[in-house]
């Protein structure tokens, strides 16, 4: 059993990883068709992942409702929203889900009038918190924070038309900050993070990093 549960997955990850890493250096047509087939499969497998997300969301809210955890009543609305959308989606304007997707259905109405406004508003709430944090919390506690805030102020003013009216140098200095010190630091970060990502990938291939297998034996 251990063979099926542990050895095979580690072997699959190893074989896939090594094969795809080496594939990159082989330009031959055979290697290209391998890449085509495997990436095609990956997309199809990925399509099923939506149900993983759905399950964990619904399971979480189901548990909340079943155990009557604080605020469980609100969880009903998750099911309500999802239920209505899925029903309209599958009904597909009378054509049902096995036919091509129709236009101008209630499914789209739900998207444009619930998901779009609510989703778009969600992060705009942060605009207000940003301002209040600017007023109360963004303090130049240390030298580092001072440099950060000065750069931030120059960039904020340099990136809007009013900055040019205050001083014509704002946009010039902001441009310089963006394309010299910012660029250099971001490049340093990018290289460091990429080395990290490569190391993680190698650890996955060699079966050292196994978090993706989930817990258990």
């Amino acid at each position, binding site marked *: 059993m251990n063979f099926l549960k542990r050895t095979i997955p580690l072997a699959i990850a190893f074989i896939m990883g090594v094969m795809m890493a080496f594939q990159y250096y082989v330009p031959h047509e055979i290697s*290209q*068709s391998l*890449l*085509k087939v495997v*990436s*095609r499969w*990956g*997309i199809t497998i*990925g*399509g099923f*992942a*939506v149900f993983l997300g759905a399950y964990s969301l619904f399971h979480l809210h189901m548990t909340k409702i079943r155990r009557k955890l604080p605020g469980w009543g609100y969880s009903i609305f998750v099911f309500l929203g999802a239920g209505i959308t899925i029903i309209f989606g599958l009904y597909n304007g009378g054509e049902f889900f096995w*036919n*091509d*997707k129709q*236009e101008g259905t209630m499914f*789209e109405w739900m*998207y*444009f009038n619930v*998901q*779009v*406004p*609510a*989703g*778009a508003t*969600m*992060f*705009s709430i942060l*605009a*207000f918190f*940003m*301002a*209040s944090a*600017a*007023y*109360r*919390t*963004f*303090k*130049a506690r240390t030298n580092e924070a001072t440099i950060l*805030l000065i750069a*931030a*102020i120059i960039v*904020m*003013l340099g*990136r*809007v*038309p*009013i*900055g*040019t*009216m205050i001083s014509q140098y704002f946009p010039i200095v902001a*441009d310089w900050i*963006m*394309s010299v010190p*910012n*660029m250099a630091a*971001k*490049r340093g970060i*990018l290289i460091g993070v990429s080395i990290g990502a490569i190391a993680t990938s190698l650890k996955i291939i060699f079966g050292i990093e196994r978090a993706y297998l989930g817990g258990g034996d």
Partner: protein
Amino acid sequence: MIERLINIDRRFIFLLVAMAVTIPLLAKFNLPVRATKDVESIYYKIDSLPKNSHILIAFDYDPASKEELQPMADALLHHCYRKDIKVVGMTLNPGGTGLAVSAIESIGKEYGKTKGTDFVFLGYKTGVELVMINMGENIFSAFPEDFHGNATIDLPVLNGIDSLEDFDYVVDLASGSSIEAWIAFGKEKYGFDLGAGCTAVIGPDMYPFLQSKQLNGLMSGLRGAAEYEILIDRESTAVAGMSPQSVVHVLVVLFVLFGNTMYFMSKRKR
């Protein structure tokens, strides 16, 4: 006095912010917006494309970033249709499908373009880099059908397109890390010109790619969209948004300066 000013109810600050945005919008004063080099390079690239060239626009964002990226998408589409460039749309974000298809089709209609001949929306696929690689090998393998279920192989708009390298230009409109993926698994692997539009949050992270020419141009945030609107001479929501943007930035800067003055004054007192 200082204590009271510092501990002011934050809802009062919220109200100030709301006013700083609403009043300039209602007053309708427009401030001059000048296009920067990075936005201009996208504009000139598209402008230099001959008639019937193909452009791929990846709408990799969802409603949460709509207010920043939709104006950009609109401006780009207007420019492409005006230049009679064939537009191919796709998305790697399921939440982006509705926004993308409505933009491509409604703006296409304004210019009298027909679906399937002048533009197509291929829809959504999951797997980010796998989708790019599959499209790079063969676009009909990655997208056998378009968003409405038509077989892509029969679409006249895709004549002359086999894979990513056949596109004359690719623009990624991103709210997440898809630009990096388009660079590593798309542009660098299959060799095409790549431009990008992104939310301002990730804008600064894109500068290393601009300098290394892995991106030929960049529009970041509403400001980037406003610059593009200026370039195509069609001022719309983004340009209108620049005056409240200015006012609210000044407000935030004043808040930071004021908050820090208070902070240092109270520190000195102690």
